[in-house]
């Protein structure tokens, strides 16, 4: 195993992670809900009246994150991103992520952050499953094909 020192950002990633944990903490302690993005977005698609507005408010907050962070933080956090997948693969990936997170009841935030923090065995199994599939998929794409 070779470490990619050029892209490794331990402090920014740790700090960003603490903010993710803080947001999840504030959400469960004062709102009483699990901060899971696939659940918040997926629930919006089938929301009953009265259950949609909090989801929308949260998602709008996420949508204004890039422009507001650009005002207060160094531009390195909005730096160039690397998207190698073609448009066709991006569509396939999006379908898999949308269907899979709803079938599996969560994604990296709901299972990976909140579920593991709750010590939920269900979320541990989900997290190990999507991590394993992620490692395997990247291995196949980068080193087999």
């Amino acid at each position, binding site marked *: 195993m070779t470490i990619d020192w050029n892209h490794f950002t331990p402090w920014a990633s740790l700090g*960003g992670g*603490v903010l993710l944990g803080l947001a999840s903490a504030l959400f469960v302690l*004062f709102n009483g809900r699990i901060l899971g993005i696939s659940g918040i977005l997926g629930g919006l698609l089938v929301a009953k009246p009265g259950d949609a507005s*909090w989801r929308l408010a949260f998602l709008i907050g996420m949508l204004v994150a890039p422009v507001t962070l650009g005002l207060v933080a160094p531009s390195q956090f909005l730096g160039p991103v690397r998207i190698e997948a073609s448009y066709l693969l991006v569509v*396939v990936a999006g379908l898999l992520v949308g269907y899979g*997170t709803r079938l599996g009841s969560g994604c990296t935030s709901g299972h990976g952050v909140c579920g593991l923090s*709750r010590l939920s065995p269900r979320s541990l199994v989900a997290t190990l499953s999507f991590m394993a599939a992620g490692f395997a998929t990247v291995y196949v794409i980068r080193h087999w094909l």
Partner: protein
Amino acid sequence: MNRRFSNRLYEFLVGLLFGWGLLIAGMTDPGKVIGFLDLAGLWDPSLGFVMGGAIAVGLFAFGLARKRTTNLLGGALHLPTASQIDRPLVIGSLLFGAGWGIAGFCPGPAIVSMASGQPKALVFVLAMVCGMMIFEGIERLKRRDSVSA
């Protein structure tokens, strides 16, 4: 300020904080995510630090929440009740992981990256919403079948 408005403002601010966290952590760069998932290539361990930082804070908050029946404001506490480790959980998570590995996007970072003006992130989010609607459609068919049977 009425209660309903302040609640929506609160959810908006938590969403904003979450989006900032994703950006600062580097999660909105699919190259960084795939760099973490590529154990056999040049490995970028950053994502492990993201999870470590988030869970360190989360353990404290959920430890507190678990001992309670309401949230800190006395309102409802909606914690998941399912405990069964079943086939949908595992198959769904495997499908999600495959999609995550293909594009390097999971739902949160894709939404934030779309708002940064990345065309591929917009396409990803549209496809993801389609995937979610397909799931809901299949669930609806299953329910109808089980009612008529």
